[in-house]
């Protein structure tokens, strides 16, 4: 009798344990969508240390997928986070802007939405694909399908000693002077004439063919369609061409704009003229290609007309993923999306960048002022993710978005009335000139009579220490140019911005030691060659010496970038 009781107790205990195990196991394994605050500076290091599956960086937070163990680890590290959706397994999420007060209730009527920061919400639905459940006309960006963790860059405090000074370059002015307002008008009209360029329509294909033909007629290199599938099996094509760099063919600058268009659901298959959105941006890309095709350049320039942007940035997401997978060295991306409508004049151009791309905005602002007589406004906002620059941010490339207004003021936006007659061609040409000037400056047209641009620049850090002090230096070396009488070395703390010459007299050899630089900040170097007549060449590509604590350096010489960060291992 007693033994029967014991067996019963044992069985009861066994089944209780099994029940608890079955209840708790899925919870332990379940992946949740979480919002991780950026308030704590350690967050950058901790995300790397814990290898959190970050899917999106926004201005004030990260969105990530994390299981129970990872959430516990974040808790233990005292990194602030909140759970947005407990069970994220198999779900698709879309980021949307909360552009109007009624937007959130509109989203909630169609699925679930949570505001993740002012102006940004994440939307999902259990009824179907969230992209299809979204109200028409909503800008959108699907949450990345892969982790963006490897490409996250912690913020760098830029010490602006003085506003970057730029000189007007006659060669760049000459190039910009070739821009034709009539050509822009022709291109926008031609794209509008396809009636609709909605990404699944034959009109969009025909527009792609038109752009391909234009690129081919300029004699560009590698003109091609870049096909991709999207949204459950639709097909579309990016159109790509390039001018291969004479000095640095593997270092690439991109100018892009999407050529697909959209209008309300009932008309989009037949009429979506999209003159401002975004025949304007695509026209600048084509016009830049026409003009630059006449100039040999140091760096490769790639011209890309993306498709399916209106569906959720599909063309650019596909392209940026391929570029990163191929390890392409993309210096910067200039994305033009709606650059021709002016609600008031003078209109200023809004230039959106994330922190690591800030230099690109500074350069565009300067180019707009020097060559286009256009006011431009820099806006550092990692949450501006609703155009084709955003996938490049996800993969760690510098990129900017040039746009006429944010929030948008164009009353014809995503309507059948977005036609060429609503555009302001003074503002449009100004935007185009600014973008072209920046592109030309970065790509560096070869100059007559100047020595060849130096190549092979490397910068190696050297760190020595005594009892009380640590001294960091950078040893630069480069390849000799036969037509150079000597070299100048330039340095900056902000990539591609505000270079200062650091050699007192011309460097005769092909190496230079920049001694006693600060240990904690990065340094970027370029070299120019100076010919016998004193003419200076274009700048070499940048070589960098990373910033990092000497304390870290003394622990181990092979630490990676993030190991140098607060909270790093």
């Amino acid at each position, binding site marked *: 009798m007693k033994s029967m009781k014991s067996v019963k107790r044992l069985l009861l205990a066994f089944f209780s344990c099994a029940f608890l195990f079955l209840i708790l196991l899925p919870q332990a394994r379940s992946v949740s969508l979480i919002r991780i605050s950026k308030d704590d500076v350690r967050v950058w290091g901790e995300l790397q240390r814990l290898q959190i599956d970050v899917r999106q960086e926004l201005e004030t937070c990260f969105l990530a997928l994390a299981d129970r163990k990872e959430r516990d680890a974040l808790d233990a590290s005292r990194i602030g986070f909140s759970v947005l959706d407990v069970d994220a397994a198999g779900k698709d999420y879309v980021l949307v802007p909360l552009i109007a007060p009624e937007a959130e209730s509109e989203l909630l009527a169609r699925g679930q939405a949570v505001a993740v920061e002012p102006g940004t919400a994440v939307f999902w639905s259990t009824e179907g694909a969230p992209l299809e459940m979204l109200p028409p006309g909503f800008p959108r960006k699907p949450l990345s399908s892969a982790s963006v963790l490897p490409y996250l860059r912690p913020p760098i405090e830029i010490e602006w000693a003085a506003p970057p000074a730029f000189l007007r370059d006659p060669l760049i002015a000459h190039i910009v002077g070739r821009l034709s307002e009539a050509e822009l008008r022709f291109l926008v009209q031609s794209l509008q004439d396809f009636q609709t360029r909605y990404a699944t329509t034959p009109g969009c294909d025909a527009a792609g063919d038109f752009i391909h033909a234009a690129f081919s007629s300029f004699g560009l290199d590698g003109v091609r369609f870049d096909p991709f599938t999207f949204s459950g099996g639709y097909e579309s094509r990016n159109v790509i061409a390039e001018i291969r760099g004479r000095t640095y063919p593997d270092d690439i600058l991109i100018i892009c704009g999407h050529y697909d268009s959209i209008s309300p659901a009932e008309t989009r298959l037949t009429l979506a003229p999209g003159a401002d959105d975004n025949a304007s941006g695509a026209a600048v890309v084509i016009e830049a290609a026409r003009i630059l095709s006449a100039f040999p350049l140091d760096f490769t320039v790639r011209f890309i007309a993306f498709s399916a942007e209106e569906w959720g940035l599909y063309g650019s997401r596909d392209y940026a993923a391929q570029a990163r997978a191929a390890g392409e060295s993309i210096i910067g991306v200039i994305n033009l999306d709606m650059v021709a409508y002016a609600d008031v004049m003078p209109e200023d151009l809004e230039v959106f960048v994330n922190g690591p791309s800030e230099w690109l905005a500074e350069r565009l602002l300067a180019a707009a002022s020097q060559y286009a007589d256009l006011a431009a406004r820099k806006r550092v906002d990692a949450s501006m993710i609703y155009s084709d620059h955003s996938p490049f941010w996800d993969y760690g490339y510098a990129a900017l978005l040039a746009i006429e207004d944010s929030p948008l003021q164009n009353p014809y936006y995503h309507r059948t009335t977005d036609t060429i007659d609503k555009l302001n061609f003074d503002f449009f040409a100004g935007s185009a000139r600014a973008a072209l000037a920046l592109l030309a400056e970065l790509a560096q047209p070869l100059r007559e009579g100047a020595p060849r641009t130096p190549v092979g620049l490397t910068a190696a*850090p050297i760190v*020595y220490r005594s*009892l009380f002090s640590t001294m960091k230096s950078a*040893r630069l070396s480069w390849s000799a140019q036969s037509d150079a009488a000597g070299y100048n070395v330039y340095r900056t703390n902000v990539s591609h911005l505000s270079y200062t010459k650091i050699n007192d007299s011309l460097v005769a050899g092909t190496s230079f030691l920049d001694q*006693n630089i600060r240990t904690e900040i990065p340094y970027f170097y370029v070299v120019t060659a100076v010919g016998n007549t004193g003419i200076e060449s274009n700048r070499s590509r940048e070589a960098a010496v990373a910033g990092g604590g000497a304390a870290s350096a003394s622990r181990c010489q092979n630490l990676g970038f993030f190991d140098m960060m607060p909270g790093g291992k």
Partner: protein
Amino acid sequence: MKARRMAALALLFGLSASAAGAGREFSFSLSGGSFSPGSKDYQRIYGSSFILSAEAVWAIRRGCGVSVGLTGLRDEGRAEVLIGGGEDYPLRFERLSIPVMFVVAPKIGRLVLRLGAGLAYHSYREKWLTADIDFEGHKIGTRLAAALVFPVFGRLSVVGSVVTDFISVEKESPPGNKVDLGGLQILAGFSLRVK
């Protein structure tokens, strides 16, 4: 902590002054020797170095007194490579110390064993000779000393001594690290009894 040490140092100076004023026995010694740093970092960069020391001892009462001294150290070294290499950065380190100690000096036959404990004020400077880097600082640390004094003739004696300083110094770069400037001094020299 710093204020207390300063007060102790002032007290020691006061006592030594009063001892001198009391007109008791006074001896002066001059010695030189080797300094072996306690810190491995110091050892690697500078190695052992030559040190010069002068000391005055006043006897307050029989077998007990106060000493005040002056110790100078200068060493040449080379900066240590952390990343890269191929350069040569000579360094110079200088330290001047003013120790004040209580001394007990029991006689063992003809020998006098002098044992001392006290504080020392250290002023130090490290300079990179070919780069524009210079670091100066000062610190009060504790000091222990033991010496054997052997009369040779008249008022003259030979002195052999062992001194250890504890000088732990904070440094700013890399942050949070400390430098141990202390170590062991082994000195030999002469002592002259004045009264």
